[in-house]
């Protein structure tokens, strides 16, 4: 039984990891775009972007999952998310949008914390704005945002369990299935070990990254 449960949970965890990895893959760069929008000089760009960030951060992720999954069906009359993979993609879209908005605010804080003098020093040396960002600002921002990003990313590991609300077969879903099929609840508790193990690995990784970036102040 233990083996059956473990295999089933591993399968669910694979789906959890897939959701986690793909969410990061898309939301980290998307967050940067949103961030540039939210600090744009033009109000016509800045205001709508800030409005979206407010909505996304101001409503539960659970609700966003439901809206993104059921919304298109209600509006178009036919669901665009079909089957297991369709539900997974719907969850992914919700997670990417949600996390990109949170990341964008972390980036914004990081970018605004870099002293104006760094930009000016780059300018008087004749660097282009792009060079100033990529050669001077980016690494300093990266160093400063590692702690809040690691916080957010570890939260994401656990937030992936919300996807079960639209029947994405992630680890909690698989764990709780044993309640119905075999009348046992311990597999559900067992899922905690997977989360703990994974966040432990992430904690080690971010510790390493912080150390790696400690060569400058």
């Amino acid at each position, binding site marked *: 039984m233990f083996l059956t449960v473990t295999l089933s949970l591993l399968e669910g965890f694979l789906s959890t990891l897939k959701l986690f990895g793909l969410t990061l893959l898309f939301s980290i760069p998307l967050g940067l775009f949103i961030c540039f929008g939210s600090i744009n000089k033009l109000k016509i760009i800045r205001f709508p972007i800030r409005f979206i960030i407010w909505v996304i951060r101001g409503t539960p992720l659970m609700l966003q999952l439901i809206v993104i999954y059921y919304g298109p069906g209600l509006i178009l009359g036919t669901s665009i998310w079909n089957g297991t993979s369709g539900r997974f993609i719907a969850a992914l879209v919700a997670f990417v949008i949600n996390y990109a908005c949170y990341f964008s605010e972390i980036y914004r804080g990081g970018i605004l914390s870099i002293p104006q003098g760094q930009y*000016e020093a780059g*300018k*008087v*040396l*004749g*660097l*282009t704005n792009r060079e100033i960002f990529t*050669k001077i600002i980016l690494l300093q921002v990266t160093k400063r945002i590692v702690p809040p990003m690691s916080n957010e990313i570890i939260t994401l590991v656990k937030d992936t369990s919300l996807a079960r609300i639209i029947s994405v077969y992630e680890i909690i879903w698989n764990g709780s299935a044993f309640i119905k099929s075999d009348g046992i609840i311990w597999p559900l508790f067992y899922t905690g070990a997977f989360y703990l193990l994974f966040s432990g690995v992430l904690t080690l990784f971010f510790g390493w990254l912080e150390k790696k970036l400690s060569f*400058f*102040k």
Partner: protein
Amino acid sequence: MSILEVKNITKKFDNTMILKGIDFSMEEGEVISIIGSSGSGKTTLLRCLNFLETPDTGMIKVNGEVLFDGANIESNKRIQEEEIRKKRLHFGMVFQQFHLFPQYTALENVCLAPNLLKNKSSDEIKQEGMMLLDRMGLSDRMNNYPHQLSGGQQQRVAIARALAMNPDILCFDEPTSALDPELTGEVLKVIRSLADNNTTMIIVTHEMGFARDVSDKVLFMDQGIILEQGDAKEVIDNPQKERTKQFLSVMNKY
């Protein structure tokens, strides 16, 4: 021909006139010190020369080439980033707070901009960078990161970084104001040696003795105008205007 001609530069922030019409010119190899109380517009003037601020009116010419013309203010607003970048390269700037790039070593700080400009080989740039740091007395500090250097050393790296771009005119914005008194000497010594090598420099400073010894000309700024200018020793030893006398007597008390 003058290396730099500045005519009737004005600059307003919100509703406060910071610069109310600045005129001066300088020759190649000349050193000009700008003195005056805080808020008199010294730093704003330097920032206008470096295109960190855009003046409202006036004209800036370097070697006879018009870099800024307030009469064409409309077209100026649309000057491409690219053009401003080229114009900036006539000037070098050393900031009060150094503003070194923390993630690069001293040598990398010096070589970054020349490497991005790409008109020399990176070996050549590295050689020049090492030479410059050596001139600054930092040959044993080339591979240190800024946070491993003292304020005086950081400022000397910043001077080398500005020199690496071969500017026509090197500007200093209170280069020793953020330093401990015992570290100002080493920075002033370096600037003095640049002056001895005929580097054209504009120095905003509160070090009156230094301004008197090193510069050819002194501009005394007060409330957005140049109130008094002339030979450095004459202005500092024998100021003509009442305001200049008052400022210098306060400065000399400390």
